[in-house]
């Protein structure tokens, strides 16, 4: 990341302000049907063009039939982004020709002529992740506030597969309309990001948010996509499209900053345009000019009435909404007395947080369990992560075959049976490796801690009777007790609780 840091430092020196805005597209994959017809929202298992009907193919005479649940899902997203929701929403047609659009227009929402979109004027705060920057972690703990311009509900186009990557070399391209008409929520931010890192953290944060809301499965390819606009030094806005993954988002921004800064350095104007991210060559390439593209001839969709949400709608959606990460974090801190740091790590990934809650069902000891998850489990996941074993936009909990019950049992062993950490770790590793329950492991391996005091006293007496000089030494030298403890540990292979043993040694010496 050295060169990337250089770019940013450079930016500061030159005094060029960096403004980044995002357009996030999120498929509502947890809907059963598409936005305007009864075809399946899950198009991913169908043969090409099988998951289609006259409506989503735009056959003559068909009319859009808006999906009620899509409106509700989109509203949940709006509320999570603290957007206002109007009492009425409406739809617009965005007219442009493209082979992946069955009607050669997209039914969407548009706010230039009236307030039509499901959400507007929102904002969301997030805390920088201390892992992202090593040296100035204090700075990155600051809360960043991103304003949300609007949230709108629209239809996804179909998908084109090209014979070759270079369009000029193509003899043919294939169109699959299975995706056409799938519900898409577009979230447009103000240009409030000032670094590519902030963008990355934000994107991780909102993917997590989508997961909490239960509206989309971000692990599905293409379910969450992102366009970026970048302007340097108050210059013209350049939009970057066609970015396949969040990792590429960050790279494309770095590239674009360098490109625009180079232009500025040579006194060349930055053109307001749309550029495509070429993933193979890692560069942005100019697309059509902005003027031509903006001739979208928007007008109100005549086939969909204005939808009255009503005044009670927002409160109804709010009560039906699942717990959001920020709410869950608050609960962990207040009810479970978990530290903010640990709570944050837990809620940062819904599946880990759910894992935690499920573990609590087996053994209600939030602090011990949270420690096991954060200190032991996540370390293992991160190791695997670094080996590049996970993909897409999510973290890989599935790569470890651990059940919440296993973690709960570990916490129980440590707490109730006073198992020491080293042994506990050994058992945990073995448990993960074999899938065997830790409680069973401890029986079979017979390494259960010696916690009954009589056994320990017996060992002490054995030691003292074979080395009686220790009794005398102990009266003059306080370190003798530690020496005796060492002998006990050796004898029991470290299976005794040192605190208990120390007390028993003292008692034994006094008794004599």
């Amino acid at each position: 990341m050295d060169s990337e840091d250089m770019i940013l430092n450079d930016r500061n020196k030159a005094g060029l302000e960096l403004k980044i805005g995002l357009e996030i597209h999120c498929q509502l994959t947890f809907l059963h049907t598409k936005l305007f017809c009864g075809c399946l929202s899950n198009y991913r298992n169908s043969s090409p063009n099988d998951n289609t009907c006259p409506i989503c193919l735009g056959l003559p005479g068909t009319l859009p039939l808006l999906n009620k649940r899509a409106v509700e899902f989109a509203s949940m997203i709006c509320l999570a982004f603290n957007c206002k929701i109007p009492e009425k929403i409406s739809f617009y047609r965005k007219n442009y020709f493209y082979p992946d659009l069955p009607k050669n227009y997209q039914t969407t929402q548009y706010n230039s002529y009236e307030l039509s979109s499901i959400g507007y004027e929102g904002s969301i705060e997030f805390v920088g992740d201390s892992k992202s920057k090593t040296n100035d972690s204090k700075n990155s703990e600051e809360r960043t506030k991103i304003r949300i311009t609007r949230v709108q509900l629209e239809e996804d186009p179909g998908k084109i597969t090209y014979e070759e990557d270079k369009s000029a070399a193509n003899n043919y391209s294939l169109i699959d309309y299975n995706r056409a008409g799938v519900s898409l929520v577009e979230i447009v931010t103000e240009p409030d990001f000032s670094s590519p890192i902030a963008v990355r953290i934000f994107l991780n944060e909102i993917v997590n948010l989508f997961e909490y809301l239960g509206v989309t499965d971000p692990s599905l390819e293409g379910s969450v996509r992102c366009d970026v606009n970048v302007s340097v030094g108050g210059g013209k806005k350049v939009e970057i499209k066609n970015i396949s993954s969040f990792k590429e988002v960050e790279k494309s921004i770095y590239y674009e900053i360098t490109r625009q800064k180079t232009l500025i350095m040579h006194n060349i104007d930055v053109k307001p345009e749309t550029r495509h991210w070429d993933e193979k060559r890692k560069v942005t390439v100019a697309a059509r000019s902005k003027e031509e593209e903006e001739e979208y001839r928007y007008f109100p969709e005549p086939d969909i009435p204005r939808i009255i949400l009503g005044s009670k709608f927002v409160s109804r959606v709010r009560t039906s909404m699942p717990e959001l990460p920020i709410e869950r974090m608050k609960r962990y801190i207040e009810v479970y007395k978990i530290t903010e740091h640990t709570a944050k790590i837990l809620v940062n990934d819904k599946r880990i947080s759910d894992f935690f809650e499920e573990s609590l069902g087996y053994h209600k000891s939030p602090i011990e369990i949270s420690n096991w998850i954060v200190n032991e489990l996540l370390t293992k996941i991160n190791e695997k992560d670094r080996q590049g074993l996970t993909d897409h936009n999510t973290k890989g909990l599935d790569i470890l075959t651990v059940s919440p019950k296993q973690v709960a049992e570990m916490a129980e062993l440590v707490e109730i049976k006073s198992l020491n950490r080293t042994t506990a770790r050994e058992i945990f590793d073995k448990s993960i490796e074999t899938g065997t329950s830790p409680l069973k492991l401890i029986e079979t391996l017979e390494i259960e801690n010696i916690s009954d005091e009589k056994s320990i006293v017996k060992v002490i007496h054995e030691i003292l009777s074979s080395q009686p000089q220790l009794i005398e030494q102990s009266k003059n030298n306080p370190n003798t007790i530690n020496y005796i403890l060492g002998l006990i540990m050796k004898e029991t292979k470290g299976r005794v609780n040192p605190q208990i043993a120390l007390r028993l040694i003292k008692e034994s010496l006094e008794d004599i």
Partner: protein
Amino acid sequence: MILKRLYELPAFVVSRKIKEQEVTAEEYISIIIERIKNVDFRINSFISHNFENAITKSRAIDKKIKEGTNTGLLAGIPVGIKDNISVQGLKNTCASRMLAEYTSPYNATVVSKIEEQDGIVIGKLNMDEFGMGTTSEYSAFGPVRNPWNPEYVAGGSSGGSAAAVASLQIPLSLGSDTGGSIRCPSSFCSVIGIKPTYGSVSRNGLISYSNSLEQIGPLARTIYDLVPLLNSISGFDPKDNTTINKKSEYQTNNVDNILKKRYKIGVLEELIDNSESEVAKNNRKKVKELENYGCEIEDTRISLSHYALASYYVIATAEASSNLSRYDNLRYGYEGSPEGYEWTSYFAESRSRFGDEVKLRILLGSYVLSAGYFGKYYAKAQKVRSKIKKEFDNLFNKYDILLLPTMPALPPKIGEKSSQPIEHYNLDVYTILANLAGIPAISIPGGLSEKGFPIGVQILADGFNEQKLIDAAVLLENVEGFETWIPKI
């Protein structure tokens, strides 16, 4: 009654005969098919036929009747369908070369409803391409000819729907009315045609020209045939979010009962005055007839009609330009392959198959919606539209129905107006008002001009007051039976 002349009778009479097993549905359909074969080569009202299926269907209806099973409102009655309304398995060309090979995989809701009432789809009817025209000259299948004089236009855009009914080929048809497309040909051919209230008939399956203006509606030779078809097709449809759940059963009341309602009639005298003299004379005669019934009559006016034409054509072309974007011959259309093309040039070449009038309207619509012009054209047109609606609201506080001519002029000769857009569009001035306001409107035969051309009278009522239009039609039909005005063909 000679069996062969069965096609002359009103549908409700024949349907009763079929139900009473005086004739079979199959016999009737065969006679109708024979009539179409004998007559239509002179009229050109059909684009495609559905004869074989119709015969099969008629046998099924006969079987039902023999078995004593109940049959519907339209038992055994052939209905012609305008070629922009989808019928499963039939070609659906919209009279366009663009859709020459397109077969619909589904039924429009109105078609399903007709079949539920045991009506029989007999074929698809000629029209102006995509409904864009007032004369039915802009068809890829040649112009529809007026049954009263084949040198003259039948009116449009549902020219086939009106001409086929007027020339005694079929008793009933469906048309669609975006700016007068049912009423204009009804007037020019001397049939009765109604444009229902916006949202009262499903548009699912109607190929959109201008979605916010148009409705499907029935055409017939007598109000007694029109009402059962209107009852069959109206009502809420879960497949069209713009339909309204407000179904009422329309009746053909007897004259005395109608007169008891003491309808107050507003006459748009200024618009009568601005029409061709024979049209004006005829409409005044109609006013007189209503007056003779003892109806209360008053002159009134609509002040915004001056802006209506611009408002209508801005909205219609804007919506059309977007609706017609989907025709790129990639997924359906006509024989042709995109092989060897870059997609933009393929689209442009495919779309060059639209007719000239369609192209003109697409260009106009694209222009009025383009960046910077939205406020000047579309938003302004909508303002005019809502103002016109308010003006009608006020008028209907005072009057039950309004009377005006359907068309300001008699049918023009084929070719006479087709190259002059404004002259052509001006023919729509009286019909577009109802579409802009979303209110129901009916064109009722009024008689013939000196040279024997039909003249229609138009009646408007407030939204969902179709019953008043039907009542007015019953009154006028009872003065002189419409069957006296049947073209000799």
